[in-house]
């Protein structure tokens, strides 16, 4: 634990240094990078040790109780790896800022990293909730960095309201769980788990609400697309890659403390997983804004993680250790993988936005020539998120598939519904990322913005390729990640690791062989084809326009037209509103929950409350009368209730 | 013989999906005709050949005659008379209808395994029966045209017919009454339809039936 706290101290020092050295930007940048790197590496060491098999760590300072067990270790790596990459990227990107408070942005980012690390290591309700709230509020300030834009402020406000609703649910959760006299340590909660009424039904519902709001489970995702799209890209990367995973961590922690969640909860999580996954990717497909699209994909991937989590919970409920272990392991691994490739994608998107100044898909195009390295990084991230071999997304989806199909006999076999859901999600995600990659990077530039695109500087490419390395490594050598994930899964399910069965472990070598072979053959095939082409007469010409002689960039397929056939199939679910006239076409993707439910409900509530406005008119003596009236009412209540023995005076 | 019965029941289900998924009126009618024919063969498939009685054979012949030949012909005639050869025009899309259909089959199957029906029957028999009823209701609810609603009604009837087969030994003539009801109701509905057509050539839309209310 000492190393962990040392690392934390270094991260905090990075934050302080950024605040102190504001006047000397170059030194500040270097100091920040150095200290954050040192901090993340130091803090990650104990996590790796725990995952490698050294027992759990613990450190207590009164009620401030912290520890690293297998679950915490896995999530600590999720925080520190992508967190470090985002910090580096942000450090470099902020270096170009002129008018905004760069030092404060760096400080807030470092503090956010520290808060995240504390959330996953807290072992008591008090440190957990404090760290949680610090994390949530800091994220708000990080999101509204470009606060001069109205839509950024609105996104921040919606986020703030949503996250506090979530915190409220969490406070209620722990209050009910701990009871009137119970201890507030997680160990005490675990001991009380069996005594919870109705198998902890209330706790589980509150957990879904509180942690679901953070994770962005449909229909609680409504704040997410705006917030993630409006933040600076390195913040988006951290929010989408890491912060929403704290919701997943919370669900995992609740499950592991409860030990045996009831079956209905597993089914509910599984169903929410399918809904979040399918709707998330469908809504992503409808987006015209690069970063909003990526944000919706986070909703989709949370769905995939929930499929694993739900299967795992069902595995416990029905007493099938194989399903429990595989489900949890798949969910954990997908959490890590999504943190890697979603951060990568947001950083890549940040680089394109940085280079072109626009997030509108239909204004981009042809960037593969102008920013070849960013393109490679973005392509790897895209292939990984779609779940294609030889990358990491495939490995975790493979695990989740195994869990969904692993269910012995009886009702748990119905987890196979998730197989169909996951297959549908996979197909839609492929279409969506084909759209993003194709429209943004391939073809010809669709606007002057895209024509002026230029390669990202090395300081931005470095973190991206660090994440690329992570994606490729887990894909090519799945043992590295799958074995620890299985250990974590087994720990959460409280079964021995061997419960995962020999089949999964035995499969790791052939998967590695296929992945490496695939990459090797693609490489040699390309080289061989290049040799063949050298021996053939090659002509270069304009793209064949089917007889039309003067094709131009505006004739290319657009993002909207690419997605149209799929969206048409899903009808109103896709939330696309079209405006057609003879000479123009405009389509807009509605956020169905926010614009369809939350805002109208908010308006209704506000309208109702507006009628109470007359009570507040600024005359002091009337306010005093209010106070007296309330006092009298209270006394009256105590008098009446006290008479029946309800309330002690 | 059980396999043959299973196969027939499966085809009954598939014809249901054909009706839910097709865009054409005529295919709908063909689908319900095929369904009727399959149902006619079902009593034969449920019993081995030596146990066939005149009752079984009569039932099969009657069912095929009514459900597979007479009613579809009647419906086709009605289409020709009213000159409606347009598409189905569903209120709920074809894909959504099919998806709802498969949900219906899944639910029906789950219920069928728990239903306390006396006697030995293939589970698929009960599942098909319930599925047919739900799919019929689905067609009734989601298709606007009166003619297709007749098809939906027939599907519903077919479901009840299949259910009747489970008690054909214990309650004689139950199924026959069902088939007779078919004729009666079929003719009755056709009468309404034809009458309706004679009055208003422009529409067979059952939404207009609301105009009849007081």
């Amino acid at each position: 634990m000492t190393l962990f706290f040392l690392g934390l101290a270094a991260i905090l020092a990075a934050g302080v240094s950024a605040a102190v050295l504001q006047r000397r930007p170059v030194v500040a940048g270097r100091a920040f990078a150095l200290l954050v790197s040192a901090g993340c590496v130091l803090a990650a060491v104990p996590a790796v040790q725990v995952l490698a098999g050294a027992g759990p760590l613990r450190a207590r300072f009164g009620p401030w109780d912290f520890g690293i067990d297998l679950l915490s270790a896995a999530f600590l790596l999720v925080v520190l790896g992508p967190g470090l990459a985002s910090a580096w990227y942000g450090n470099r990107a902020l270096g170009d800022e002129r008018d905004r408070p760069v030092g404060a942005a760096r400080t807030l980012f470092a503090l956010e990293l520290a808060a995240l690390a504390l959330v996953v290591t807290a072992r008591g309700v008090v440190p957990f909730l404090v760290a949680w709230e610090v994390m949530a509020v800091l994220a708000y300030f990080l999101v509204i960095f470009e606060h001069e834009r109205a839509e950024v402020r609105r996104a921040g406000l919606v986020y703030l309201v949503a996250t506090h609703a979530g915190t409220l649910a969490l406070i209620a959760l722990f209050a009910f769980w701990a009871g009137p006299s119970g201890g507030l340590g997680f160990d005490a909660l675990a001991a009380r788990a069996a005594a919870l009424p109705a198998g902890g039904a209330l706790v589980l519902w509150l957990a879904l609400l509180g942690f679901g709001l953070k994770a962005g489970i449909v229909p609680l995702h409504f704040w997410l697309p705006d917030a993630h799209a409006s933040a600076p890209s390195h913040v988006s990367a951290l929010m989408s890659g890491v912060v929403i995973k704290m919701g997943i961590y919370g669900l995992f922690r609740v499950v592991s403390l409860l030990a045996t969640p009831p079956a209905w909860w597993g089914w509910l999580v599984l169903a929410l997983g399918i809904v979040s996954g399918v709707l998330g990717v469908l809504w992503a497909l409808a987006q015209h804004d690069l970063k909003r699209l990526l944000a919706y994909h986070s909703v989709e991937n949370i769905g995939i993680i929930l499929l694993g989590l739900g299967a795992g919970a069902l595995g416990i409920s029905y007493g099938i250790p194989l399903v429990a272990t595989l489900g949890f392991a798949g969910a954990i691994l997908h959490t890590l993988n999504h943190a890697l490739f979603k951060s990568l994608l947001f950083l890549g998107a940040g680089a394109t936005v940085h280079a072109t100044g626009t997030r509108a898909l239909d204004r981009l195009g042809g960037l593969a020539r102008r920013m070849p390295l960013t393109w490679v990084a973005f392509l790897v991230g895209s292939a990984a998120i779609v779940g294609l071999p030889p990358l990491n997304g495939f490995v975790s989806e493979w695990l989740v598939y195994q869990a969904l199909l692993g269910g012995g006999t009886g009702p748990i076999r119905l987890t196979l519904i998730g197989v169909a859901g996951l297959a549908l999600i996979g197909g839609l995600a492929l279409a969506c990322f084909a759209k993003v990659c194709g429209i943004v990077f391939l073809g010809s530039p669709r606007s002057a913005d895209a024509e002026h695109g230029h390669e990202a500087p090395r300081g931005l490419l470095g973190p991206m390729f660090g994440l690329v390395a992570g994606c490729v490594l887990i894909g090519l050598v799945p043992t590295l990640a799958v074995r620890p994930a299985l250990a974590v899964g087994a720990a959460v399910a409280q079964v021995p690791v061997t419960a995962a069965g020999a089949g999964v472990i035995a499969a790791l070598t052939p998967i590695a062989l296929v992945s490496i072979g695939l990459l090797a053959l693609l490489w040699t095939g390309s080289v061989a084809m290049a040799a063949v082409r050298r021996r053939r007469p090659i002509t270069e010409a304009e793209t064949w326009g089917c007889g039309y002689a003067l094709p131009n960039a505006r004739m290319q397929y657009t993002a909207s037209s690419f997605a149209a056939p799929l969206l048409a199939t899903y009808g109103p679910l896709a939330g696309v509103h079209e405006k057609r006239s003879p000479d123009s076409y405009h389509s807009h993707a509605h956020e169905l929950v926010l614009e369809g439910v939350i805002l109208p409900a908010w308006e209704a509530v506000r309208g109702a409350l507006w009628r109470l406005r007359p009570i507040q008119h600024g005359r002091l003596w009337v306010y005093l009368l209010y106070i007296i009236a309330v006092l009298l009412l209270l006394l009256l209540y105590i008098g009446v209730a006290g008479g029946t023995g309800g309330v002690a005076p | 013989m059980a396999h043959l019965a299973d196969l027939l029941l499966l085809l009954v289900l598939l014809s249901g999906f054909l009706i839910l998924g097709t865009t054409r009126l005529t295919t709908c009618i063909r689908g319900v005709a095929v369904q009727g024919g399959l149902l006619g063969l079902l009593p034969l498939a449920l019993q081995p050949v030596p146990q066939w009685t005149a009752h079984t054979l009569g039932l099969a012949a009657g069912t095929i005659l009514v459900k597979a030949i007479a009613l579809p012909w009647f419906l086709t005639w009605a289409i020709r008379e009213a000159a409606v050869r347009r598409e189905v025009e569903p209120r709920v899309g074809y894909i959504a209808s099919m998806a709802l259909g498969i949900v219906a089959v899944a639910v029906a199957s789950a219920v069928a395994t728990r239903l306390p029906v006396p006697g030995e029957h293939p589970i698929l028999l009960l599942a098909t029966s319930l599925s047919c009823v739900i799919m019929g209701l689905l067609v009734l609810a989601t298709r606007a045209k009166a003619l297709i609603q007749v098809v939906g009604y027939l599907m519903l009837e077919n479901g009840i017919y299949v259910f009747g087969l489970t008690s054909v030994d214990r309650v004689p003539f139950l199924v026959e009454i069902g088939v007779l009801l078919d004729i009666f109701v079929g003719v009755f509905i056709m009468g309404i339809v034809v009458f309706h057509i004679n009055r208003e050539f422009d529409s067979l839309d059952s939404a207009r039936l609301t105009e009849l209310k007081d």
Partner: protein
Amino acid sequence: MTGWALAGLGAMLALAPLLPGVAAKTKALLTGRRGAPVWQLYRDLLRLWRKGAVYSTRTTWMFRLAPVAGVVTPLFATMLLPLDCRAAVVRFAGDFVAFAALLALGRFLLVLAALDTGSSFEGMGASRDAAFASLVEPALFLGFVVLALGTGQRSLSAMLGGDAGTLSWGAGAPSLAMVAVSLFFVLLAESSRVPVDDPATHLELTMIHEVAVLDHSGPDLALLLYGGALRMGLFAALPVGVLVSRAGLAGPLALGALLAGTVVVAAVVGVLESSMARLRLSRVPQFLVAASVLASLGVILQLLT
């Protein structure tokens, strides 16, 4: 064991180009023409391989990578199929996920190559290709679910080969039939056949797969055509494998039956193409969802027994 699996791999790689030829020949014979010989595709491939190529100045390396991936990905997918109805060259728990994902990788790169040209026609083809593929994916996986449920196994080799578990003709017949038909639908969609797509169409606006590879020429087109034939072989081998592996054959006999079966399937595709037109584009999703419905019925039947 592995010997026959390797022989199967070789045979599939060598004979796959026959399948489009068989389909075309059947169609020709049924429509009263003599038609091209069944080995026409071999000739085409050779001719294209020797030709030069034209590259659009707009394209990047993606355009050149896609044809290679178009062959390499089905090649690896073939390695996962137990073509001798015993065991595949590579097999592991959950390899069906890899099978689908490998083919998805090929499609992903192909769609990107189409968008690389910046042609509106190829964009159109890419869009439709991606859209229809996403609707087929659940059907394919539901088919695997039936096999996995029936056999209690998690690898293609054990689902389609080995002793084929408990899922055999007899009690499992209805659900097996559903799966076989559903996989046949998947074949039609994945290898761009009537009623989803028409390989013989001449109008770019109505094409799907053909228009997505419009700009590829020479050796690149040869690779794409060969990869397409291989995909067709794979997806034909799936339903055939479902049926043949339950017949208790093994080794050379099973391999022979499987290969003969794929030829028969190709002929059935030809019969279908000569007897029906392609569907209107807006109706294709209905057809593809029907494949999923069939497979779901198979799953329900499997759960009932």
